[in-house]
């Protein structure tokens, strides 16, 4: 059965995208002169959904490599999610081009005066990191890895589609998929770490944590599982995927449960190692979040750890669609907030100091004096919509990106039968039992 992407759903999703676009436009015009809020929202959402696509490709490849069979009935969903890279990578390239074009001040290191020894803005730490934190690497890594990822995912996808029309050809198509999947794994594993450093961690350019890539990757992974559950539940409610049973949801629920704990482990370890190891110079990351983002910082832990841990602990809550959908939706939003916390404080700091240093002349345009802004960098006002807590414009932007993502996934799903009928593991998957 092929998914029929009705014009009604298209209209709804398009409406969501228009809402997102409208929010972006509104953000742009109500913004400071560096368009900090606009660009940080753009980065936040682009990174979030691109990462989800990377993780879907990664998990699919890991499953193919391991000869896993249980997921095969809904493998088209992961194929579609991972293909979202076709949209996500260009969005990230846009951010990269913005660094060269001086469109935004998301990254402190993109200000070239900081690595000029004769300039007053000279920054020894950024000077030491300039070999990696520069626009060439940013664009190069995004472009090269993006092309490799999309290429391999398309290969796996086309082999999967070829099975439908030409049969599995013995195990040959499975072997072919496995070859590409095994190649994808190192590119996704090491590559995702590299893009996380460049895309996200470098907004706090002075700070680094060797655990950060794991932590962010786990966040992406959990979000990917949440979206998979929600998409499958939606499609099932529309009468598709009769083969996807409560057993598959049970296993997805286990992944949601397990990787929420994994995420918490990394979230805590990152703090723990800095705190216990007396690495004073790295405490700045947490100091900023403790002081100015306490509600989100601790709420994050409550939503992303305590809620899934206690709710999904029992067998039956993973097998009841109501509780599973509730947790999946909650945790998806929780990890979106997690990314908000990763991106916003650093970007805000960079923007404030950029304005204070007078790299732009029109500082006082919106009635903020230089001193006021410089002070704001150190003591951000307690609640500033869009900066210290997500405002309506952020939520609208999130809905817009989500609708774009869902639109793309459904579009890809409608292109091929939802269940690959000739996959060698299809029978195992249909009779999957946890």
């Amino acid at each position, binding site marked *: 059965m092929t998914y029929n992407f009705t014009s009604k759903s298209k209209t709804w999703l398009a409406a969501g995208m228009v809402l997102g676009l409208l929010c972006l436009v509104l953000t742009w015009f109500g913004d400071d002169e560096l368009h900090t809020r606009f660009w940080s929202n753009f980065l936040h959402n682009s990174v979030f959904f691109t990462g989800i696509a990377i993780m879907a490709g990664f998990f699919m490849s890991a499953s193919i490599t391991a000869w896993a069979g249980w997921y095969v009935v809904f493998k088209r969903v992961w194929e579609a999610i991972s293909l979202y890279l076709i949209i996500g990578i260009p969005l990230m390239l846009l951010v990269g081009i913005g660094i060269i074009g001086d469109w935004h001040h998301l990254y402190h290191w993109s200000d070239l005066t900081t690595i000029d020894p004769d300039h007053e803005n000279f920054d020894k730490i950024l000077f030491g990191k300039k070999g990696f934190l520069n626009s060439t690497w940013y664009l190069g890594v995004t472009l090269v890895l993006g092309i490799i990822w999309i290429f391999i995912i398309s290969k796996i996808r086309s082999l999967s589609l070829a099975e439908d029309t030409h049969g599995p050809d013995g195990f040959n198509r499975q072997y072919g998929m496995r070859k590409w999947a095994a190649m994808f794994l190192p590119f996704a594993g090491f590559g995702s770490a590299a893009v996380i450093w460049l895309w996200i961690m470098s907004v706090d350019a002075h700070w680094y944590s060797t655990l950060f890539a794991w932590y962010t990757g786990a966040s992406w992974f959990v979000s990917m599982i949440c979206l998979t559950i929600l998409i499958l539940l939606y499609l099932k409610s529309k009468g598709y995927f009769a083969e996807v049973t409560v057993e598959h949801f049970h296993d997805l629920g286990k992944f949601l449960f397990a990787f929420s704990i994994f995420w918490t482990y990394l979230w*805590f370890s990152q*703090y*723990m190692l800095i*705190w*216990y190891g*007396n690495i004073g110079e790295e405490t700045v990351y947490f100091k900023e979040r403790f002081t100015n983002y306490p509600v989100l910082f601790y709420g994050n832990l409550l939503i992303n750890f305590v809620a899934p841990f206690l709710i999904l*602990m*029992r*067998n039956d809550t993973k097998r009841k669609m109501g509780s599973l959908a509730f947790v999946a939706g909650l945790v998806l939003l929780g990890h979106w907030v997690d990314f908000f916390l990763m991106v916003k404080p650093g970007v805000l700091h960079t923007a404030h100091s950029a304005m204070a240093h007078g790299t732009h002349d029109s500082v006082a345009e919106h009635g903020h004096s230089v001193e006021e802004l410089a002070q704001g960098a150190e003591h951000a006002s307690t609640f500033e919509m869009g900066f210290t807590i997500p405002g309506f414009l952020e939520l609208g932007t999130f809905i817009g990106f989500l609708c774009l993502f869902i639109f793309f996934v459904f579009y890809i799903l409608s292109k091929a039968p939802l269940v690959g009928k000739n996959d060698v593991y299809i029978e195992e998957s249909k009779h999957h*039992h946890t």
Partner: protein
Amino acid sequence: MANNKDIIYGLYNDEEDLLRAVKQANSDHLEIMDVYTPFPVHGLDPLLGLTESRLHIAGFIYGLLGTLTAFLGMTWIFTKDWPIIFGGKPHWSLPAFIPIIFELTVLFSAIGMTVTFYIVNGLGPGVVNPTIDLRITDDKFCIAFDKSEVEASKAESFLRSSGAAEIHSKTI
């Protein structure tokens, strides 16, 4: 077992045969005493009408006990009993407690569940558990009927018709 039982049992070579036979016995209303398999067979529990084990509820309680023991224990030790300064940190340092809280939670629930499992099932050192046939720990699947519950001839004809490779009687 204290009271001896006369049983009749059939050995199957394949778990699919076993599952079919259990379904057949259910529709024939034959009271199965027990089924023995070398490994957990998927889908067997609901056919036998077994309810979900409550062991994990006990496990949760043991885990909670471990969490509290570690948390309260360390709080008492490091603030009242023997306060020591480690690396300039405060006496009551929650982040430093968390690894130990985690470990004691796991330890308590693991040991507690194991002990509970052994007690509930009457297992332990020196306990003799009769094994119907040694091959049920290797590659045979067994359905056993209690002769006081099911007529022996009926059970035998059922076992024969459902494809049992061997049929035996025994007193355990």
